[in-house]
């Protein structure tokens, strides 16, 4: 695959991983830097296309969304909502403290 050269160093990979809340070890950072350079280099083949005046398409539906009547219906119970939680506590989801 031909493509443009994209520079993407370990620091930038770590920054993107932080944005994505992904913990990566050094080996993953090194591997991903190479892979992302190659993939983004191919992706960048469209960046030079002279199409600035073309409207972007977010989805392909040619009609507005299908909306239902706004009426209240039974939802899940608290017990059901907590059934898959890794650490349910009384009536909520327990998480570690925010900030270290």
């Amino acid at each position, binding site marked *: *695959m031909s493509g443009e050269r994209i520079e993407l160093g370990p620091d930038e*990979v770590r920054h*993107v*991983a932080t*944005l*994505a*809340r*992904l*913990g*990566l070890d050094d080996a*993953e950072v090194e591997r*991903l830097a190479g*892979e*992302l350079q*190659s*993939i*983004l280099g*191919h*992706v*960048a*083949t*469209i*960046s030079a*296309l002279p*199409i*600035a005046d*073309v*409207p*972007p*398409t*977010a*989805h*392909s*539906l*040619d*009609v507005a*969304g*299908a*909306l*239902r009547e706004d009426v209240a219906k039974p939802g*899940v119970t608290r017990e*059901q*909502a907590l*059934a*898959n*939680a*890794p*650490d349910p506590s009384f009536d909520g*989801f327990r*998480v*570690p*403290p*925010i*900030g*270290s």
Partner: protein
Amino acid sequence: MAAVDVIGLTAERAAAMLREGECSSEELATAYLERIEAFDPALHAYLHVDPEHTLAAARAQDQSGNVGLAGVPIAYKDLLSTKGVPTTAGSKILEGFIPLEDADVVARGNAAGLVSLGKTNLDEFAMGSSTEHSAYGPTRNPWDQTRVPGGSSGGSAAVVAAGLAPWSLGTDTGGSIRQPAAFCGLVGLMPTYGTVSRFGVVAFACSLEQVGPMTLTVRDCALLQQVIAGGSERDATCVGLREPIVLPEPGRLDGVRFGVPWAELEDGVDLGIRERFDASLKLATELGAELVDVELPYARHGLAAYYVIAPAEASANLSRFDGVRYGLRVDAPDLRSMYEATRSAGFGPEVKRRIMIGTYALSAGYHDAYYVQAQRVRTLIRRDFDFAFLGVDAILLPTAPTTAFPMGARMDDPLAMYANDIFTLPVNLAGIPALSIPNGLVEGLPSGLQIIGAAHTENALMRFGAAFEQAIGFDPVPPALRGGAT
């Protein structure tokens, strides 16, 4: 209990046998469960099978009288939520997750009386083209167990090809129904975007994906599409069908105009695939169709646009897996490091790769250059198709540029893996339907013919598909399974 021979059995025929009392749903389910027990350990096409649950559902159908499709078994891709039944999306981060509700397509299957045989393997979160990216291990192709079944709906393809289910549901975000259907000698339909509810489908890229049938015949494909298509008040993007799906009859193709985008076939198509494709063009003309040159100049940029848009949507969708409400949690002293440790342990390499690409493409300074530019290319691809369909009834392309590749062959080269979807993903970007049907063998392996239509032309595509199907005369049973062998 008489053993039912289910090798090569279509769902249409199974339904007729049930209605005419030739067998019971319980006998049918038993026959499939016995085959699953015998052959699935080698293929690894199912992630979850619960014989007691399946047999109870089959007996319930027998008791209520088998009308229509009631009592016919089915397999569901494990991306589809099943109430009370584990749903993993092929990921460790959802190991042990038990959905509270059925996906709409599963609820529709239940309402039609279909009996679930189990949940099928897939690339993690449907990200892949070989099913090798499943966190639970790869699936093997029933035609050649050294090769991949395609992906991401590789398990759903393998179970039908191997006679471990009469039909199945897959999902298609960039080719994930059509390419495995082609690799395993099946019929697969990517429906028009918005005709099938996505409620209860574990989300990967919402603007691109649809649920669709994977079957032995075009008529089975139409029968299953009748079950799953239609509007839903639980999916605001699901507008339903413009006309009912009709069962196609094979016939001639007099007066039909097929577009052939010759420029797209110049590079990267295996010789054997090209020969089978050219043979299908000759068949089309013998059946009375006319071939018309069409151009899709932006389709070649589909791969690049797709690998911005799909990862961007995925990076947003997968942010919900945070170790708080469901799935895996890896403990850590504070919230942020819990998120990072959980997601690091729970996601596999391909999912991490796509989250990283998507997060990068959406981040400050790159959003316009990558994401908006890719959306402009999407507009142009849609316009290419719109323009082509002014002059033709459908467009023909190979489904994939190769047959099933050897296991491991593309795992170290993400771009080579992505490139296998070159003919399928422009269809998802445009939101239009495409049918893949078996197009004969290349060196003993199935190949696929893709018939692409304008939005809401599924009936025409299946009528064309039925004509090709009869003329091609493909036997969807792999040679090793023929002759009533068990």
